[in-house]
């Protein structure tokens, strides 16, 4: 890795100026964990990195006064979320996901914003934010816009962010009555990138799945909502037949890619099995949510 400059602006405006709007060798840096890997592999050779760690507007996380949503600043680290009793109470699926995400050293520095902006379809949190219905606030010289987390991703390592735009924070709705669970399915060693990531949420009324939220990642090029599978389950009583139908619908609506963690055909089987198991798991209420 060649030498490079790291700037640490304290104001958003200064950051915009430094970043400019031309794609090139200047990029923002959150925790730097993803950037560092790309730089080591010589996939990215920055001339300058603009660290966001001193910009106060991007930090902190809190529950809204009416307890309807949680705002999480882009520079919030994974460890901060993992160790927060407030998050454990209102977004237990986030606490659960952290336990098998990377390792303590990475979690201590990796940030919520960097994780979203990276656009790697194997990351564990994007499907969770998507399933929870979070929205992302994007800021830039031209002002700000808000996009649903699931619309942030365009494809493999591709997002809607333009050069010079920053993720400021995300807003995650607190959803009483819902239970969520993230299934990280690894196939090579216990600790690995997922062969399949699946975030499942349900609002149960007795044995009936009143509402459901399903987002798949890792086996696809971006976190993808399983809309047909959701439709197949909504308002239906839990049964093996219903789960099998939902799995068929899911397999029909997404294009699953094979990789080093499993062939496409095998991942299809994993989706079938783990979709059913995850839904049973949350319906039984033993989920993390």
């Amino acid at each position, binding site marked *: *890795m060649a030498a490079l400059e790291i700037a640490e602006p304290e104001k958003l405006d200064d950051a915009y100026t430094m970043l400019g709007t031309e794609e090139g060798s200047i990029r923002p840096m959150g925790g730097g964990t993803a950037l560092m890997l790309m730089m080591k592999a010589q996939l990215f050779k920055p001339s300058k990195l603009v660290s966001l760690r001193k910009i106060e507007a991007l930090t902190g996380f809190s529950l809204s006064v009416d307890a309807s949503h949680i705002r999480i600043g882009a520079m919030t680290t994974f460890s901060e979320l993992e160790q927060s009793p407030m998050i454990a109470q209102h977004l237990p699926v986030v606490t659960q996901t952290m336990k098998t995400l990377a390792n303590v050293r990475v979690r201590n520095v990796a940030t919520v914003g960097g994780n979203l902006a990276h656009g790697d379809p194997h990351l564990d949190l994007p499907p969770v934010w998507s399933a929870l219905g979070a929205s992302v606030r994007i800021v830039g010289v031209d002002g700000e816009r808000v996009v649903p987390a699931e619309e942030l991703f365009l494809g493999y390592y591709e997002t809607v962010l333009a050069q010079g735009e920053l993720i400021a924070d995300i807003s995650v709705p607190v959803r009483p009555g819902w239970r969520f669970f993230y299934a990280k399915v690894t*196939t*090579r*060693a216990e600790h690995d990138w997922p062969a399949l990531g699946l975030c499942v949420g349900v609002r149960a009324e007795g044995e009936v799945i009143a509402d459901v939220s399903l987002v798949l990642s890792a086996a696809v090029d971006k976190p993808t909502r399983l809309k047909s599978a959701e439709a197949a389950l909504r308002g239906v009583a839990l049964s093996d037949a219903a789960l099998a139908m939902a799995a068929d619908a899911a397999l029909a609506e997404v294009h699953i890619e094979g990789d*080093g963690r499993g062939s*496409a055909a*095998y991942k299809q089987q*994993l989706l079938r*099995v*783990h979709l059913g198991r995850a839904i049973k798991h949350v319906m039984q209420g033993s989920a993390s949510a």
Partner: protein
Amino acid sequence: MSAITPPPFASRSLPRLEAREKVTGRIEYTHHLKLPGMLHGKIFRSTMPHAKIKSIDTTAAAALPGVYQVVTIDDIRKVIPNPYYGPAFHDQPILADGKVRFAGEPVAVVLAFDKKIAEEAAGLITAEYEELPAVFDEIEAMTAKVLVHDELKPAATFADLKYLKGKKGTNIALDYQLRRGDTEAAFARAEHVFEHTFRSQQVMHVPMEPFVSVADWQDGHLTLHTASQGPSFVRIEIARLLGLPENKVRVKVPYLGGGFGGKLYIKLEALVTALSMVAERPVKISLTMDEQFFMVTRHPCHFTIKSGLDASGKIIARHCEVIWNGGAYADIGPRVTQKAGFTSAGPYDIDNVTINSYAVYTNRPPCGALRGFGAPQTAWAYECHTDMIADALKMDRVEFRRKNMLREGRPQASGTPLRDAEIERAMDHVLDRMNWSAPFDRGSGNIKRGRGIGIGFKGITSPTTSVAIVNLNADGSCALYIGTVDMGQGSDTVMAQIAAQVLNLDPASIKVIHPDTDVTPYDMGTLGSRSTFHMGNAVRIAAEDAKQKIEVLARELGLPQGANLPLVDMMKQKYGMQAGNIIGTGTYLADYEKPDAQGQTTKGTPFWGVGAAGAEVEIDIETGAIKVTKLVNVADVGVALNPKAVQQQLSGAGIMQLGFTLTENMVFRDGQLTNGSLADYKIPTLLDMPKSFINEHVPNAYDAHGPFGAKGGGESTTIALSPAIGNAVADALGIRIYDLPITPEAIFRAMQEAKGAPLEEDA
């Protein structure tokens, strides 16, 4: 010879002498070394698996500010006219010479004072290639028209390879043969015949300290500082390359952060030597973790095993066809082919055995020694085969083994009788720890459970020599001069214990001098579980020699018998002041007899490495996900001189083999490694450890030829582990996995196959 009762220290788990220095980060590693004026080298590697090099463009790299020089084979030839090296064949060029033979082969090197600049400049080099057809599969390579080398070039040091010199038109570097009895006739009269084929994948050593070497060429003599397991070999081979006497080449080795067989023979040493000669400056190369995949790896192995049995279930004939994918350069592969070939019929008493074992060149990264020297790959085949035969004959799997087991005094396939090898007791110890006779829970719902065992053995590289010097200073303090490399196995501590035992000293007070070929005497290498046995014997002999010299001195001084005067007082009496040394020397060469043309010898190995394993597995039948819930490893190490160090060797070897069994696999597409980083090449972590993980040695074992009854144990628990797991999977599912690694997808595919609904492959 030593007494049959173990000496007192034998039960002492003395903490490692260097433990404090290691955990406080003060210990010496080659990675820390900086010499004045030293350059760093960064390697530019081939992107083609097999190609002629049309041109190499180094202009942009050379023009980068801070770059000292860019070196190719043309520069090297000016200082080393015949720049080819290797332990068995002189087939490997120091840098690619007109041709590349695997993707990842070193083609050029950038030298710079700043490592980062060297790295950046290496990225600016380009090469033009004319692609050649390549061969990657060992079976294809046996008969392929594509030739990896035009001509075989065996090293003169191995007399038995001479017949291969100049052979053309083949990828077979070596064909090892063993013939015992009349196999064909025995098959003809056999009641049952079974034949199966098993495959092992390419894996890597993954030492936590990647390869690193520093060369300092000055005025016609060379100093190498290197993370090597075999400093004596490095000196001999480098001296040969340079046409120098051995005393002009000095090789120094501090502690190693793991070696596992990878850091043997010549690795970076020839390259840094050549670079230092070209640049006339010290040169260091330290590989990254990812580059290690292109240095040396473990052989993929294709093993077809066929057995004939009589009506009673006795194995009367066995035919082994073992093919080793050696990659582009032979390294020590031909020796792996011979040594693992030799025991490939397994620890069974079989009168008629035919073994053919082939070392084959392909366009993959080179393969060499890795913990077990081929024995794990062969045991994967013969121990799965054992269970399959027992099941087919409806015999109990344990009793079938007992019935056919090779026992003390009986000749192994080579004719060498089994001696001090506790195969049956190792198996019984495993069975005991597995609670084998208790009822076994077979699982419920989507979980199926199974259990299995395996037993195995290996011969030890022979003939090899170790030399040790024990130096007692005039104050009675002791230093031990040995070439054994402590790479984490604890050899310093054990060698000090052996010397201390003879000299009646506190082992922690002994100073072990690390390998420095100007100072420490010859040793064949820290390899193949040989050090405790060979160097341990040399140290014992050297210490006994020193002790005898003290007794002579006492007589000379007229001291009454049993006076026990402290050495310092004796030395003062003798020399008139505190002066002089007592030097004891010891050389150990194990008894050996060269095999005849049929591979027969009565002295084929100095001792037998013995391992047995048991595994319990849980399989999710909807996904194939596998968990090893219990793993038992048992080895016969003779007397455990340092039980704690032994236990760590057994568990360490077990964990390594667990990775080779379940997770590790170098995946290639068109000759390109697609998972060459630890993010994608998965070694087991703590989370992958079995919940119950038991590692023990056979109690009260004794090797009559070992120092105080001890023998090596660094590899024994690698041997039988994979088949124990494979057999447990078969026990759970009734389905046999033939290829390693046993991944969840492999299991699921095998289950689908058995159902007649095979899973589609990726295009």
